[in-house]
Each structure stands twice: as structure tokens, then as C-alpha cells.
């Protein structure tokens, strides 16, 4: 049942385009039923998960210890509920956003696939399962970001996201394998109890670094943060889904998930707090610098992700509780704000905050939900965002001055961003927009209403369900039972003062946004150091390298190709022979006169074929060499081979004569120097082969499997011709492959000759 719930999205997704064709208007609502049902099912699991982790296993590759297994505890349920619940609203919303467009079916398909991948990722218990779903989210998000694939800019953004996150995924894979080796298991539920052993392991640091690269790329931490704002090329429902609750939170999920196993070491704390804090500041500053609604939100998301990583890095009970509160609050208000930005964009045709004013008259409901969500983002009581921010500040105060400063500055800048996105476009005198603004359809308003309203509700009233969920999640992250309440009021204390100070500073910043923005422009000089430049340079370098090596090795000149192959052979085989077997082996074999004559005939025929000017002469020489080889087979106990060789050689000569008499004779087109050089290279290659063969026949490497065939040919396969028994019985499958190749070659010949007949 659990696997069914997680994987159902994959099963339903292919039906989406079909459903969309049949019922364009209703399809989004119908498809949203699936995530709603999944949400309901996950809710029923909450009581069991609150009591401890439940693991459900299905064997997959038992030989390698890989299984499809799912871990249900508070943390995975928290994420799964966010993914499925927000997913339902996103599906409904996209029905309005792309109403009447044929591309909607494809969007629904991709959204469902992405949802399934995310659910698998957060529920996975086996490390390999986790990795597979991790990469699936990278691939599906690539398709989603590049959804409007006709614009080159979007394709570039999608590729950038894919390269950064999938590249990080490779590091993650290495890290997970190290962890599996160190912990002796690939099951998360086992590894979480092995924390002591893992932290003490010699490979702890490489393991940690590799996993952090994976998590940081996914969660857009500095210096990998640049892909996230570019990913705003995606349609807004996609941005809302990927960047509020799901894709970018995957890295945070992984860190939270692994913190009982890898956390609370000096390395862990130092790396996470430093990178997280830096990311929070960077995101906050860049958010205030931006003027595009979606980019402001994107940078604000970078700031939130940084804060989450910072909190997980600190790792105390308060910090983890703050992280979970902040995560939930962020998913709600950021989801709502992205959706609002989409409505504004959809209804007015613009996303530029400098040009959007006074929309509250024409879009009152949108303005209401935007305001609610923005207040929550700014951390104004009585909204849920306030409670979360209080916890964050409390943690920061308990940690140290640097962290406190970081958190307060980014909180103040976040207030500015909240004002820019949720307040500024809606107040003041209306200004002209590309499209005459109208209130959005209610399918699009539903998501913002529920998400923004949820922020208000959780802030105002104690919701037992949320408390239970967050408590269970905290227990899972901490590895021991814990209780968490979403109390709004903590009394008058330094935290409240800090919170008020940040809020006031933010309001002042909003009031004087233009001067603030200009003064922050001074930081733009740092852009030359931006990691995105390194990414671009690396990509340019890769293209340059590919270009050069293609010109060098694959220039279409067969001569060059063959020389490359020969030199590779000479270097690899020659080097091995020269270093490992420098001396000529002792040669002691009896040589009969008639055998020597046959060998000489073959050699002379080969040399004649290579040097003659007559095409027919070369064919005849080839035939002579072939018959000589057939005689060798017969003399050395291979009658079947001899017969085959004679027959094939005859047919070859027939075939060559059939075709080649239509082609011109040989003319000498190469220069004498080229001929001599080629002859030298060929002779060297031939000498290497001779040397190799002399060694091969002298040295007994290892017993062959032929003994089995010789012993069992008669008794098992009732055949006395062992060669034939191998062909048609012991290795029949190989022979089947070979006759298939033969048949294909014949069909190829037939097609090439006959197709031309049709062309004319």
C-alpha cells in the first residue's frame, strides 16, 4: 500500500495527456484528486510514525543488498505531506495558468512524475533507492525548468540546473556508497543508529564532503546558488512547486535526515553554519537588488535555504525545532507568493516590481492573499512566519554574535523583499500594464488562499495535527523523542526585541528601497567572482575540448583513424610486453617441411596482395592466403574449420569478382614518403603481433573451460563432434546471436541494392 501510494504518481502520469485531451477543463481537478488521496493516506500514517520509524521493504536486487524500501517517520511524513498537498494545489493552479493550451497535458505529466520522484526521495530507506529518486528529481526538474523549450535561454537554464544538481548527485552517490561501506548497511534506518561508528570512521571526512556537495548543489547553497534564480525560466506553477516546498528542499531534507548519523562533529557544524550563513546573506542581498517578482522570490528562497542549512548545522534541539518550523512556514508563504506572482504575471503581463502599482483595486483577492503571505514572510505577528522567525532568532542568540548578526541582517532584508513582492505592486496609484489587470480565476486563487490562510491559521490557533507532525519530525531528526509546539508568544525577551528591530529596519529599508538598492549595487563588482562565471568558463572549456579532440581524432579521414588504432595498440601492447616480458621466450617447436611451405605461401600471397597494382591480382592473392590458412586448420586438427574456410574463401572470391569488376583498377595516389611511412607503421604493428603471439603460446595462463566441453560433449549432449556440440548446444545462445548478425547483414545488402532501384 505504501509503495503504491508513493509510486502511484508514476502510474497516473502517462494518463495525463490523454485525460487532458478528453476533458481539457476538468483534467487538472481530476488529476489533483490523486495527490489529495495520497495526502489523506499519509495522514493516516502519522500516529504510527509518531511512535517511531516504520520500514517497509520490497526486494529489488537482493544479490547486491539493494531493495526498494521506504522509511516512514516524522521527518519523511512532514516532507511527503508538503509535497503531496502542495502538489494538489499546483496541479489545479496550472489548469488555470495554462488554460486552453495544448502544452498543459505535458505539464501535468511532468508535474506528476516530479511529485512521484520527490515522494520516493523523501520516503526512501535504502541509500540506492534514495539516490535513484534523487536523480529522478534532477531529470524531471530539468524537463520542467525547460518546459518552454523553444526559447534558447530556457534550455540553457534547464541544462545548468541539471548539470549542477546531477553533478552534485554523482558526488552524493560516492558519499552514500562510502557511508554504506563504513556503516555496513545501505539501510538508512540501520545507519541512523550507527552514528558513533560512522563519525569515528577513517573515511568520515571524505564521506561528509561528498554528501555535502550533493546536498549543497540541490539546495542552491553558495557557491552553487546561481542555478536557482535562472531556473525561474520555468512556468510559475513549476517554480512555485520546485522552489517552495520540494526540489530545493531535498538537500535540506538529506541534511536533516543524516544529522543523527553524521552530525554534531566540529566539521559538520563548521561547514554547515559557514555555508548556510553565507548563503543566507547572499540570497537576502541579491533579493533586494532584483526587480523581477520571481527573481526576488528566488533569491529570498536562497536566503531561506541558507538559514535552514545554518540551523541544521548548529544542531541543538532549539535549532532543529526552529529549522522544522521555518521549513513549514517557508513552504506555505513562499508557495503562496510564487503563485501570486504567477497570477500577477498572468493577468497583467508583467513581473517588474518597478512598474506594477495599485493592483488591489482590480485584483482584491490576490492582494489579500499576497499581503497575508508577505506578512508571514516578513515575520509579523500573528502569522506563522513570526513564530518561526522567533525560534530562529532564539537559536541565533544562543549560538553567538556572528550568527545573530547574519540572521538579523537577512531577516531585515527579507522584510524588504516581502514588501516588494507582497505589498508594493498592490498599493498606490494604478500604473499601466501590458494587459488590463483582472482578478485571477478561482482555480488559480485556491492555492494562494489555502497556503496563505494556513499561515494565518497555524499562527493564530494551536493546531494539534501540526504540533504532532512537527514533534514527530523533530524526534526523527534528533534521534530521540521530542515535543514541539508552535506557540506564537514567548513573552517579552531579547528575542522579541531583535525581532522588532529587524522588522523596523526592514520597513525602513522598504521605504528607502531605491537608495538601498543603489548602494547595494556597489557589491556588483563582486560579480566578476561569481561562481556562475566559473560554470560558464568550464562549459566553454568543455566545448573547446570536444571541438579540438573531434578535429584531432574524428576528422573523417579513415587513414587517421586506423593510424590512431595502430598507435594505441603499439603503445599499450608494446609497453606491456617491453616492461613485463623483456626477453624473447625460448622457442622450441618442431617444424615440418610441408608446413613451412604453406606458411611461406601465405606470407608471399599477403605481400603480393599489398603491393600489386591489379585489383584482380589482389583478390586472387587473398584467395591463395585463405586456402593456405584452411590447410593449416586441417593440419592442426580442425577439420570443421578447414571446410568452412575453404567454402567461405570460394564464396568471397566469387563475391569480390561480382562487385569489384565494376570498380576502377588501382592507381598510385599516395606519395612515396607516405607509402614508406605506412609500410613502417604496418611492419611495426605486425612485429608487435608476432611478439605477442610468441609469448601467448609459451605461457600457460590459466586452465581453460574447454575441459568441461571435452568431458561432457558425449555424456550430456549426445554428440561426438565437440565443436558442433559447443555451437548448437553448450553455447547455442551465442550462435543465435551470430546467425542474427548474418541475417541482418544479408538484409542490409538487399536493402542497399533494392532501395536504389526505388530512388530512380
Amino acid at each position: 500500500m505504501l509503495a503504491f501510494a508513493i509510486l502511484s504518481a508514476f502510474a497516473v502520469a502517462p494518463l495525463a495527456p490523454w485525460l487532458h485531451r478528453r476533458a481539457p477543463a476538468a483534467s487538472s481537478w481530476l488529476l489533483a484528486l490523486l495527490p489529495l488521496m495520497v495526502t489523506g493516506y499519509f495522514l493516516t500514517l502519522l500516529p504510527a510514525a509518531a511512535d517511531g520509524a516504520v520500514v517497509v521493504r520490497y526486494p529489488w536486487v537482493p544479490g547486491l543488498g539493494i531493495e526498494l524500501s521506504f522509511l516512514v517517520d516524522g521527518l519523511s511524513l512532514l516532507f511527503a505531506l508538503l509535497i503531496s498537498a502542495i502538489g494538489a494545489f499546483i496541479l489545479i493552479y496550472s489548469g488555470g495558468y495554462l488554460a486552453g493550451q495544448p502544452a498543459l497535458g505535458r505539464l501535468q505529466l511532468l508535474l506528476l512524475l516530479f511529485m512521484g520522484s520527490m515522494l520516493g526521495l523523501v520516503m526512501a530507506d535504502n541509500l540506492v533507492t534514495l539516490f535513484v529518486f534523487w536523480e529522478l528529481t534532477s531529470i524531471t526538474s530539468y524537463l520542467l525548468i525547460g518546459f518552454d523549450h523553444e526559447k534558447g535561454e530556457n534550455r540553457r537554464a534547464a541544462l545548468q540546473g541539471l548539470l549542477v544538481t546531477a553533478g552534485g548527485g554523482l558526488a552524493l552517490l560516492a558519499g552514500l556508497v562510502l557511508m554504506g561501506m563504513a556503516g555496513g548497511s545501505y539501510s538508512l534506518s540501520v545507519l541512523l543508529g550507527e552514528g558513533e561508528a560512522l563519525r569515528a570512521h577513517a573515511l568520515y571526512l571524505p564521506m561528509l564532503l561528498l554528501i555535502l556537495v550533493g546536498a549543497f548543489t540541490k539546495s542552491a547553497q553558495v557557491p552553487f546558488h546561481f542555478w536557482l534564480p535562472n531556473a525561474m525560466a520555468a512556468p510559475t506553477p513549476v517554480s512555485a512547486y520546485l522552489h517552495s516546498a520540494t526540489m530545493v528542499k531535498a538537500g535540506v531534507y538529506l541534511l536533516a535526515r543524516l544529522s543523527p548519523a553524521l552530525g554534531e562533529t566540529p566539521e559538520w557544524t563548521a561547514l554547515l553554519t559557514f555555508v548556510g550563513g553565507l548563503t543566507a546573506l547572499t540570497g537576502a542581498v541579491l533579493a533586494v537588488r532584483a526587480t523581477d517578482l520571481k527573481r526576488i522570490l528566488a533569491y529570498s528562497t536562497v536566503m531561506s535555504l541558507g538559514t535552514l542549512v545554518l540551523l541544521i548545522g548548529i544542531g541543538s534541539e532549539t535549532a532543529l525545532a526552529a529549522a522544522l518550523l521555518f521549513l513549514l512556514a517557508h513552504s506555505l508563504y513562499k508557495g503562496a507568493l510564487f503563485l501570486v506572482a504567477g497570477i500577477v504575471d498572468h493577468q497583467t503581463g508583467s513581473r517588474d516590481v518597478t512598474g506594477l502599482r495599485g493592483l488591489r483595486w482590480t485584483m482584491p483577492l490576490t492582494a489579500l492573499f499576497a499581503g497575508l503571505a508577505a506578512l508571514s514572510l516578513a515575520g509579523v505577528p500573528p502569522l506563522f512566519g513570526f513564530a518561526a522567525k522567533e525560534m530562529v532568532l532564539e537559536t541565533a542568540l544562543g549560538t553567538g554574535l556572528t550568527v545573530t548578526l547574519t540572521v538579523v541582517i537577512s531577516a531585515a532584508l527579507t522584510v524588504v523583499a516581502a514588501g516588494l513582492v507582497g505589498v508594493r505592486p498592490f498599493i498606490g496609484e494604478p500604473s499601466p500594464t501590458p494587459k488590463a489587470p483582472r482578478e485571477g480565476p478561482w482555480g488559480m486563487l485556491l492555492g494562494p488562499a489555502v497556503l496563505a490562510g494556513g499561515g494565518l491559521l497555524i499562527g493564530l490557533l494551536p493546531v494539534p495535527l501540526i504540533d504532532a507532525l512537527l514533534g514527530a519530525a523533530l524526534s526523527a531528526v534528533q534521534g530521540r523523542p521530542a515535543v514541539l509546539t508552535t506557540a506564537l508568544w514567548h513573552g517579552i525577551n531579547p528575542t522579541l526585541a531583535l525581532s522588532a528591530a529587524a522588522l523596523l529596519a526592514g520597513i525602513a529599508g522598504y521605504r528607502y528601497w531605491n537608495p538601498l538598492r543603489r548602494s547595494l549595487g556597489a557589491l556588483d563588482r563582486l560579480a566578476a567572482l561569481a561562481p556562475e562565471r566559473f560554470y560558464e568558463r568550464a562549459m566553454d572549456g568543455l566545448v573547446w575540448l570536444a571541438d579540438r579532440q573531434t578535429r584531432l581524432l574524428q576528422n573523417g579521414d579513415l587513414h587517421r583513424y586506423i593510424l590512431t588504432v595502430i598507435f594505441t595498440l603499439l603503445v599499450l601492447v608494446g609497453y606491456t610486453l617491453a616492461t613485463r616480458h623483456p626477453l624473447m621466450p625460448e622457442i622450441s617447436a618442431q617444424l615440418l617441411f610441408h608446413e613451412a611451405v604453406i606458411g611461406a605461401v601465405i606470407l608471399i600471397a599477403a605481400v603480393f596482395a599489398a603491393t600489386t597494382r591489379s585489383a584482380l591480382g589482389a583478390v586472387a592473392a587473398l584467395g591463395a592466403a585463405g586456402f593456405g590458412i584452411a590447410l593449416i586448420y586441417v593440419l592442426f586438427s580442425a577439420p570443421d574449420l578447414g571446410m568452412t574456410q575453404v567454402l567461405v574463401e570460394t564464396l568471397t572470391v566469387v563475391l569480390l569478382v561480382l562487385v569489384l569488376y565494376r570498380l576502377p583498377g588501382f592507381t598510385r595516389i599516395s606519395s612515396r614518403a607516405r607509402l614508406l611511412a605506412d609500410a613502417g607503421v604496418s611492419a611495426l604493428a605486425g612485429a608487435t603481433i608476432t611478439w605477442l603471439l610468441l609469448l601467448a603460446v609459451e605461457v600457460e595462463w590459466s586452465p581453460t573451460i574447454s575441459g568441461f566441453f571435452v568431458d561432457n560433449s558425449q555424456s550430456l549432449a549426445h554428440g561426438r563432434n565437440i565443436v558442433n556440440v559447443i555451437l548448437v548446444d553448450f553455447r547455442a545462445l551465442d550462435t543465435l546471436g551470430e546467425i542474427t548478425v548474418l541475417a541482418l547483414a544479408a538484409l542490409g545488402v538487399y536493402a542497399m541494392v533494392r532501395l536504389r532501384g526505388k530512388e530512380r
Partner: protein
Amino acid sequence: MEPLLALVIGGLYAAALFMMLRRSIVKLVIGLMLLSNAANLLIFTAAGLTRGVPPLVPEGLTRPDGLSADPLPQALVLTAIVISFGVLAFAVVLIHRAYEAVGTDDLRRLRDTDT
């Protein structure tokens, strides 16, 4: 016999590669054929040569009486011979078609037409 065959095979390889390095397509095909013959003989020889004892079980016995030649390389080479014929037929016709389309048997000029 092995040293002599090693020499013969080395010579076959050298001649075949030399032919494949020429610019005429016809030489390329003949070189390819020579090369597959050389490779077959290489496998056969590398497995060890035995005179006059084919891998056959005499009637009434369950396994060869005493020593017998190694059947495995023979099975390998047998199919390789037949397959190389199929490949040759394919290559020859392909080249013939290319010659008809381009009107040259110079590989150097063939390169220019497809870029």
C-alpha cells in the same frame, strides 16, 4: 610450427594494415578481409596447436581417448569465419554504393563529401 605461424600472422597483419592505410576503397576491403583471416588464425594459434587429433569423441567412448585438440577456439573461429563473410558482403556493397554515389574510390575525397 608456432614461431613460423607467429611470423606468418605478423606478416598478414602488416600487409592487411598497410592495405587499409591506402586511399583506395578496394584495397581497404581486401585489407579488411586479410585482417579477419589473420585474426582468426591468431586466435587459433594462441590456443595451442596440436597435430592430427581433431576434437571428436570416438564411437563408443564418452570422451576422447587421450589428448585432443582444444574445441573452444575452433568453435569461436568457425562462427567468426562465417560472420566475416557477412560483414565483407555488407562492406563491399556499401562501398560499391558509395562509389556510385560519389564517383570516386579515393577515401580522401569521400571524406570531403560528407562534411
